[in-house]
């Protein structure tokens, strides 16, 4: 296996184990903190599934040359450079979005809660949109 791929798998496995542990901790904490039970269980379930799922994917990747090829493409320096440029652009667009939404919130056009939920969707949406545009135009 390519040493860069092995390093990436090792690093991502560590992150996934971290997610799994935090997820399980949140699930257990949900039993003891009744005020935030639904939040902790939701968070715990989401993180545990994401962590366990990613661990399974990487376990399979160790034996699959096709999946290792995809990891090589993911590590491709031009792809990483384009993704970094997209992230930088998305940061400033989201910054303006938060400024605009805060203004709306001041005039009671939108609640802070709705604004935060919308931001959770808008942020990755903008990032992926810009990343796709950058990958298309090079």
């Amino acid at each position: 296996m390519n040493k860069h791929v092995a390093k990436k798998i090792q690093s991502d496995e560590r992150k996934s184990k971290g997610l799994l542990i935090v997820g399980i901790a949140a699930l257990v904490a949900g039993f003891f903190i009744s005020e935030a039970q639904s939040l902790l269980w939701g968070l715990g379930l989401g993180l545990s599934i994401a962590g366990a799922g990613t661990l399974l994917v990487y376990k399979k990747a160790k034996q699959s040359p096709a999946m290792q090829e995809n990891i090589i493409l993911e590590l491709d320096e031009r792809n990483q450079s384009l993704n970094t440029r997209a992230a930088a652009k998305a940061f400033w667009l989201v910054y303006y979005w938060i400024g605009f939404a805060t203004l709306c919130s001041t005039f009671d056009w939108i609640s802070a809660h709705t604004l935060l939920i919308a931001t959770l969707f808008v942020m990755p949406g903008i990032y992926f949109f810009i990343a796709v545009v950058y990958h298309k135009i090079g």
Partner: protein
Amino acid sequence: MKNQIRVLRKQKGMTQQELAKILAVSRQTVIAIENGKYHPSLELAFKISRVMELPLEAIFFDQEDEDE
């Protein structure tokens, strides 16, 4: 910044896909470098130099140097 990669690759009888595999990058990256749309990192430039068996300055050159 311009480069001679396309010419050198063809002299070596390599396809873009083959060169991409040796360099551990995507074919799109090779295309972008050949077209001058993407400037490779120093690490990748040295890899290209090793594959082409030529010094860096024989592969990459500044547009202004060419004009002179």
